């Protein structure tokens, strides 16, 4: 109890409030700006955390993530442009509501649903962590390796692109993660004699380039939005949300589960929540024409996903989504190696983080309802002007990690790579996850496992948890590659002989 009071007094201290509220405000602002995703916002503000204590750094980043996940819904409603990919279903329903003159209602539904989703997510995080921690203690290098593979596979599957392309992107990410000095024997790999490459490819420059710079390249032209103006109605309408509170709760639980699965994240959770709302709706025909249920489902799920994504990060050191991948990178820079042992030795870390996530929810409820109109005004700024600032922020973000201009060049290279991948419809999330999971988690554990088994691959398949993971991976591969072929074969057979 004493430690709980201590945690809350720390969070409610002037410094704590300043850190969390500024994180939320920056997050809402970044998320609301079209073309600036949550990952990009967090990657850009990560620069500010280098001089902070690791705990405050993660709380600031978590607050930014919570703020930006909500913020994305503002431009979705007002401009019909999802501020973040996690607000895509919100744009479908919210903009239609706004066109009917119910923009305030849509914005208020977003803020309340987001708050509900975030709160449910935080509660579930606190409930599942002890179980996950116990489970994580059973994990050896074999299981950790398969867990990394599982994360990559799921990310490739759910990245809303072709599965094969997702896998290719993940493999490429893995290969990039192997650049640098090998952590076990100190042998240089793919460095080509460059001392810069000895440290490997920086995660922050890669992320800023892939998510930030590539967006700049494709958006640096004047855009016209069909902006909706707000009237005088309140931006806090609790009653409209209360009608769908149970659906919001269910969508939040689904969102949290999606968050826990490594590498998936809010971009998928929003669609799962939206789909859940659609499946349980009595007015399915209204979907796509401005329905509150769709908004509640999508916003509850994507915000509940945020706390969920921290569960695998803290327990296994595996990020739940691309934003927590940035957070992991920042924690590594701070010298913090998250995992079961870390959490056992520093249990207050979890409670402080959960407290920060909850407080971020309360703060965006306040900020969203009080300054929501002001944010909408800022959205009228021309996109090129926003992107010009983003370019400078990207350069500062990449440079400030090691104060090396070469990091900025790497960021530029990844910007071009992101643009090419986007043109060819290759997803970028598996690539980033590959870079994050490749080095220590996949390669390190794979080789440690081989050494422990004296070169034998058998334990990879025979250990109980490993065998379950392998089975799951095989099922995914079967469903993606073999099942469609079987279906096509049966369809063709049926077409050839309709009497069958």
């Amino acid at each position, binding site marked *: 109890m004493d430690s709980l009071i201590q945690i809350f007094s720390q969070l409610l201290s002037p410094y704590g409030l300043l850190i969390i509220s500024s994180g939320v405000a920056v997050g809402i602002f970044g998320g609301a700006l079209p073309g600036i995703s949550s990952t990009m916002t967090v990657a850009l503000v990560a*620069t500010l955390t280098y001089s902070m204590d690791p705990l405050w750094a993660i709380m600031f980043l978590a607050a930014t993530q919570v703020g930006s996940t909500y913020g994305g819904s503002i431009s979705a409603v007002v401009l019909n442009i999802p501020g973040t990919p996690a607000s895509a279903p919100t744009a479908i329903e919210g903009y239609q509501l706004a066109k009917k003159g119910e923009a305030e209602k849509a914005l208020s539904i977003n803020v309340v649903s987001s708050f509900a989703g975030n709160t449910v997510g935080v509660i579930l995080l606190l409930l599942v962590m002890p179980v996950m921690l116990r489970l994580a203690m059973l994990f050896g290098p074999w299981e950790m390796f398969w867990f990394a593979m599982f994360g990559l596979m799921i990310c490739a599957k759910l990245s809303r692109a072709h599965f094969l392309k997702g896998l290719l992107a993940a493999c490429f990410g893995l290969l990039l993660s192997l650049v640098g000095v090998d952590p076990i024997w100190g042998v240089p*790999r793919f460095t080509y004699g460059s001392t810069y490459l000895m440290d490997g490819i920086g995660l922050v420059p890669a992320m800023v380039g892939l998510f930030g710079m590539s967006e700049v390249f494709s958006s*640096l032209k004047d855009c016209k939005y069909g902006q909706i103006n707000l009237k005088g109605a309140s931006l806090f309408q609790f009653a409209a949300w209360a009608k769908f509170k149970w659906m919001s709760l269910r969508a939040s639980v689904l969102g949290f589960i999606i968050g826990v699965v490594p590498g998936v994240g809010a971009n998928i959770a929003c669609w799962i929540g939206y789909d859940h709302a659609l499946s349980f709706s009595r007015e399915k025909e209204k979907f796509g024409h401005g329905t509150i249920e769709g908004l509640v489902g999508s916003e509850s799920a994507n915000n509940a996903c945020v706390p969920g994504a921290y569960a695998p990060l803290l327990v296994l050191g595996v990020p739940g989504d691309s934003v927590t991948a940035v957070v992991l990178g920042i924690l590594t820079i701070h010298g913090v190696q998250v995992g079961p042992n870390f959490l056992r030795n520093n249990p207050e870390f979890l409670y402080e983080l959960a407290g920060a996530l909850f407080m971020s929810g309360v703060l965006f409820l306040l900020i969203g309802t009080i300054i929501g109109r002001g944010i909408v005004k800022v959205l009228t700024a021309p996109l090129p002007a926003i992107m*010009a600032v983003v370019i*400078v922020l990207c350069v500062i973000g990449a440079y400030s990690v090691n104060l090396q201009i070469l990091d900025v060049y790497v960021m530029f290279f990844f910007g071009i790579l992101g643009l090419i991948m986007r043109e060819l419809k290759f997803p970028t999330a598996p690539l980033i996850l590959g870079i994050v999971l490749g080095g220590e988690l996949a390669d390190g554990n794979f080789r440690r496992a081989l050494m422990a088994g004296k070169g034998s691959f058998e334990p990879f398949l025979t250990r109980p948890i490993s065998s379950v993971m392998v089975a799951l991976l095989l099922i995914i591969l079967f469903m993606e590659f073999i099942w469609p072929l079987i279906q096509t074969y049966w369809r063709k057979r049926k077409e050839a002989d309709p009497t069958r």
Partner: protein
Amino acid sequence: MKLTSNDKEVLAGFVLMLFGVYFIWTSAMIKGEEEFFESAGIFPLIVSGIFTLLSAIHMCVSLFKGGHPTVDKISISIRLMLKNEGFREVMLAIGIVALYIFVGATFVSIYLAGAILIFGILRGFVRRIRLVVSLAVTCGLVAAMYLVFTVMFKMPII
């Protein structure tokens, strides 16, 4: 006739496969004095192998779907692409950013070159903006960034 999406996929698969083969060769070159299963090259070798295999599958699937890129198609597509206004705008954006990074940020200063970049973009890309407003916005934004990063967070960025 220009390249179809399947043609592009075949080409993408082929290029990735070449990358994969190169990675296999480079991984095989990683030398260590330890056993094969302990060596630093084993994991890169496996991943490169999978990458090459997946690229080959991607290429074959696109070929089966009707992809058939020819030199004629490629040259026509390149010519059309160069004439495309959207492509030119993207190239212009890349050029501006490259100039800022490789010349401005490297030899001048991140902030000063940033100010020139923001001012240039405001004047060049945003319609109906007055000179005084662009100047004021540029100065305000750069000053705000300087205050946050260099003054508040004491980052040695110039």
